[in-house]
C-alpha cells in the first residue's frame, strides 16, 4: 500500500501543476532557471551557516502561497524523502564535537550546527524542487528544457515517460493487487514471483510501445516529434528571474538576520 501512497503523491502534484495562478503562468524556463539558481546559492553557503540561510525560506513560501499550493502537502513530502540526508547529517554531531557558543551561557557542539545547516538546506532545496513541479506542468518543464538546449531526442522520450507513467503504474498496481489477493502474505511475494510479474509487465510494456508506434505512424510520424508551442519569454518572466536572482544575491552577501537582529536589539536597547 505504501507504493500507492507514493503514487498518489505524484498524482496530486501533477494535478496541482495544471492550476492557473500567477506562478503557474510564468514561463517554465524562468522557473527552472530561478529554482536552479536558488539551489546553487543555498548550497554555496559554508558548512556551519544556519542563520544566513533563513531569509531564503521566503522564496518557497512566496511561490507556494502565490501558486496556491497546500503547504502541509509539500512539508509532508519533504519529510518523507529526508532519510538519506538525515542519515548522513546525523553523524556530524558525533564526529564534530567542538563547542560553539550561540548565546551567553549556551553552547552546542559544532556538529549540531552543521547538521542543522544540512537540514535547512535540505528543506529549502527540496521544497523548491517540489514547488517547481507543482507550479509548472511537466510538459511545460520539458518545453523549457528543450529551449534551454537539451537534445530533442532526450526531451521527447522524457515526455513519453511522463505520458505513460500513470498508465503503467496503474497497470502495475493492478497486478500487485491480484498477486496480494492470493498470496496471503506468503512466499507469493518472493523474488521468483516478482521476476515473473516484472517480466510479464515488461513484455506488455514492449507490446504497448509497439502499438503506440503504430498509432504514431498512422499519423504521419517520420522520426521527429513535432511541436508548435512557441511561448514568448515575456517581460514578467524576465522580471521574475531578475527579482529572484537579486533577492538571492542580497541574501547571499548580506547577513540579513544578523543585521535585523542588531537593528532590533539596538532599538530595544
Amino acid at each position: 500500500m505504501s507504493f500507492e501512497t507514493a503514487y498518489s503523491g505524484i498524482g496530486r502534484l501533477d494535478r496541482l501543476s495544471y492550476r492557473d495562478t500567477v506562478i503557474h503562468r510564468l514561463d517554465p524556463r524562468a522557473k527552472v532557471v530561478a529554482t536552479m539558481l536558488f539551489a546553487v546559492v543555498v548550497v554555496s553557503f559554508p558548512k556551519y551557516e544556519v542563520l544566513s540561510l533563513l531569509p531564503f525560506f521566503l522564496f518557497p513560501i512566496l511561490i507556494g502561497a502565490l501558486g496556491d499550493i497546500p503547504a502541509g502537502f509539500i512539508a509532508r513530502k519533504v519529510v518523507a524523502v529526508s532519510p538519506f540526508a538525515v542519515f548522513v547529517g546525523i553523524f556530524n554531531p558525533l564526529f564534530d564535537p567542538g563547542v560553539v557558543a550561540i548565546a551567553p551561557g549556551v553552547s552546542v557542539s559544532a556538529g549540531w550546527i552543521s547538521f542543522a545547516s544540512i537540514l535547512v538546506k535540505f528543506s529549502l532545496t527540496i521544497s523548491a524542487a517540489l514547488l517547481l513541479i507543482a507550479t509548472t506542468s511537466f510538459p511545460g518543464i520539458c518545453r523549457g528544457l528543450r529551449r534551454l538546449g537539451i537534445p530533442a531526442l532526450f526531451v521527447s522520450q522524457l515526455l513519453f515517460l511522463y505520458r505513460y507513467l500513470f498508465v503503467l503504474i496503474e497497470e502495475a498496481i493492478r497486478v500487485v493487487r491480484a498477486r496480494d489477493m492470493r498470496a496471503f502474505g506468503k512466499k507469493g511475494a518472493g523474488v521468483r514471483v516478482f521476476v515473473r510479474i516484472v517480466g510479464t509487465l515488461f513484455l506488455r510494456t514492449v507490446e504497448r510501445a509497439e502499438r503506440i508506434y503504430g498509432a504514431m505512424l498512422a499519423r504521419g510520424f517520420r522520426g521527429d516529434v513535432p511541436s508548435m508551442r512557441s511561448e514568448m519569454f515575456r517581460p514578467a518572466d524576465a522580471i521574475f528571474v531578475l527579482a529572484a536572482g537579486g533577492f538571492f544575491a542580497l541574501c547571499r552577501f548580506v547577513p540579513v538576520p544578523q543585521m535585523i537582529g542588531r537593528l532590533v536589539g539596538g532599538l530595544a536597547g
Partner: protein
Amino acid sequence: MSHHLLEFKDVRFRYPDGTEALKGVSFLITHGESVGIVGANGAGKSTLLLHMNGYLLPTSGSVTVGELPLRKETRPEFRRKVGVVFQNPDDQLFMPTVFDDVAFGPLNLGLPPDRVRERVNDALRQVGALALADKPPHHLSGGEKSAVAIATVISMEPDILVMDEPAASLDPKGRRSVIGLLNSFAHSKIVASHDLDLILDVCARCLVIRDGMIVADGPAPEILSDATLLAENNLELPLTLQGRAAREGTHR
C-alpha cells in the same frame, strides 16, 4: 449460514489524493444472493469491490463477512472467504502455466500438494478449461483467459465471488459462456458491469451507485427497466429490453 452475509455499514473511502470515492455506502447481501452493481464511469464500482476483500480499508464505516469484521489483521481470512476477479485477466495471470496460476492461491493457503492438485482440477473443470492446464497464459484467447482468471479464484473456494466487468472485450460467445459460468456458481456473487444485459441474465438484485452513493437497490428486472433512473446514471435500458424497432425510431 450467517457466515455468508456481507455487510457494508456507512462505508466511506477517500483516496490518498483526496478523491472521495465512497460517501457512505450501506447494504447487506445474504447467502446465495446474486447482486449486480451498475453505475457511470467513475461512480465508484471498482472502489467498492476493492473493499470486499480488504484491498482497500474503509476510511470510516465497517465491512463484515459473517461475524468477521474487516481489519488489517483479518484480511487474509477475509480473502479466503471473498474471492475477487478483476476486470483485465492479463493483470491476474502471471505464473508460467495455467496450472501454476490456479495453484498459486491454494499453495499460499498452505494446503498439501495433493489437495492443491485436486482444487486446481476442480476449478479448471468448473470453468471448462481443464485442457489448458499446461499452457502458458499469454497464449490463451481472450475468453480462455477470462475463464482461467475465474478459476484462480474459485480454487480458493470462496463463499462469495466478486467480479468486476467479467466479460469486457470477449466475443458474444465468450460473453455467453461467462454468463453460464456465473449462473452455475451456487454461492453468493456480486458483479459490477456496464453490460446491463449480462447483469439482467446473472443477477436477481441490483444496486445503482452514483458518485459514491447507492441511489437504488432492488430487484434487477425492476431497476433495470426504470428508464428514468437509468438515464440519470449515464445508463440506458438493457439492449434486450430496448428492442430494435423502438431504437430505429429514435436514433436514426
